[in-house]
């Protein structure tokens, strides 16, 4: 494997985000609260898997390796996804709030990334942006239905909001590597997206009769490979087949 440079590191970050959240969403397949949601979760997970594949395949050409090795042969410390993506699926309220936070971010992010100076990233972003628009309509709709639902659903949604609130900061953190890539016209500035994201969240929470949590806090570390204890367990499950049978194909 070639030594990673800024661009391949950046592509891997986006790939890991998609892979890890896609795996989490797929945990609802056959477990969702109703059939329509089960199908929707499976479809959305597939979109994420497809996105991860496009990005891993691109990174693999730069790193002289394969997409499978990148997805299945790296340990938790080598994964660079943002922490919000790896958290266990929790109850349906938790998964819904997480999905809405990330969908709302992704529509803003990939809409901008379409203008990346890197042609392959721009092409992947254009496909991803189309899918994100379907995703965010569904997760926003669920936010309102569950938030403005029963006392039980409202209280679970508010709890999920409180539990996820401090993870949102990491979405908007630009480190040195991404800043350099932004100056080269490849990456986009995360911090610039926050006002629009905040407005979209506030707008939805009002409609969903939910409140912005009072307590704010911050956790970060995903980009440096410093994860919650949950990622390792998830990767065990996800990578077990490939590691037990190297090179296995259908």
């Amino acid at each position, binding site marked *: 494997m070639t030594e990673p440079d800024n661009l391949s590191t950046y592509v891997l970050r986006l790939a890991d985000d998609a892979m890890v959240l896609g795996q989490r969403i797929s945990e609802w397949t056959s477990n969702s609260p109703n059939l*329509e949601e089960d199908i929707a979760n499976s479809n*959305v997970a597939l979109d994420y898997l497809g996105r991860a*594949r496009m990005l891993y395949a691109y990174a693999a050409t730069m790193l002289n390796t*394969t997409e499978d090795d990148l997805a299945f042969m790296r340990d938790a410390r080598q994964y660079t996804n943002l922490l919000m993506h790896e958290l266990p699926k929790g109850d349906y309220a938790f998964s819904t709030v997480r999905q809405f936070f990330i969908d709302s971010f992704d529509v803003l992010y990939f809409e901008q990334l379409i203008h990346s100076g890197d042609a392959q990233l721009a092409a992947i972003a*254009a*496909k991803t942006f189309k899918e994100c628009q379907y995703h965010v309509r569904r997760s926003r709709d669920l936010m309102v239905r569950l938030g403005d639902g029963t006392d039980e659903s409202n209280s679970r949604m508010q709890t999920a909001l409180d539990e996820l609130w401090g993870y949102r900061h990491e979405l908007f953190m630009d480190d040195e590597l991404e800043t350099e890539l932004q100056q080269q016209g490849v990456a986009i500035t995360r911090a610039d997206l926050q006002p629009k994201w905040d407005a979209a969240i506030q707008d939805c929470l009002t409609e969903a009769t939910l409140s912005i949590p009072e307590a704010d806090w911050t956790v970060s570390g995903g980009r440096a490979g410093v994860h919650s204890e949950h990622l390792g367990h998830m990767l065990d499950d996800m990578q077990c087949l490939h590691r037990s049978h190297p090179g296995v194909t259908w």
Partner: protein
Amino acid sequence: MRSVSETVVPIKAHSQHQQALRSLAPELEQRIMTLLSEVKDPELPMLSIQDLGILRSIGWSCDEQLVVNISPTYSGCPAVEAIRVNIIEHLANHGYQNVLVIEQLSPAWTTEWMTEQGKAALKAHGIAAPLAHGCSKPVPVSGLECPQCNSTNTGLITEFGSTACKAMYNCHSCFETFDYFKAF
């Protein structure tokens, strides 16, 4: 199956395949296009890859490979992989062995590239064809024409259906459910 799929290149960096293709002689081009029109979407077998709008171009690469450029539909759609294999197999069965199928990501595939013939074939098989707008608009909650009885007294069941590309509807006139191929 395995030996065929092994000849398919993995999805590679777009930029590496931005080589100029030489056009085929008109007669050969027509023959290849006819053969390609016989390759169907495995999940929607009433649609050829041309009807679906994913066949972008064909030509010779600089090292004399016959190149078929296709646009993937949804990024995780398993049909695309099957279509790639089917293209290689079908052309091989007709004597064209040295074929390279390239997934061209940009410009991104849109249902606006679906042919009128393709839309008619969908309707004939009970699937409502995509409306002429992209994915920025939600699928209609009501009023979509039922492909079986043409009533517009219909309602959305779910925006995510049996495959990534479809939503599911109920017809309140003929009481059948039907799929809608979403605008994308």
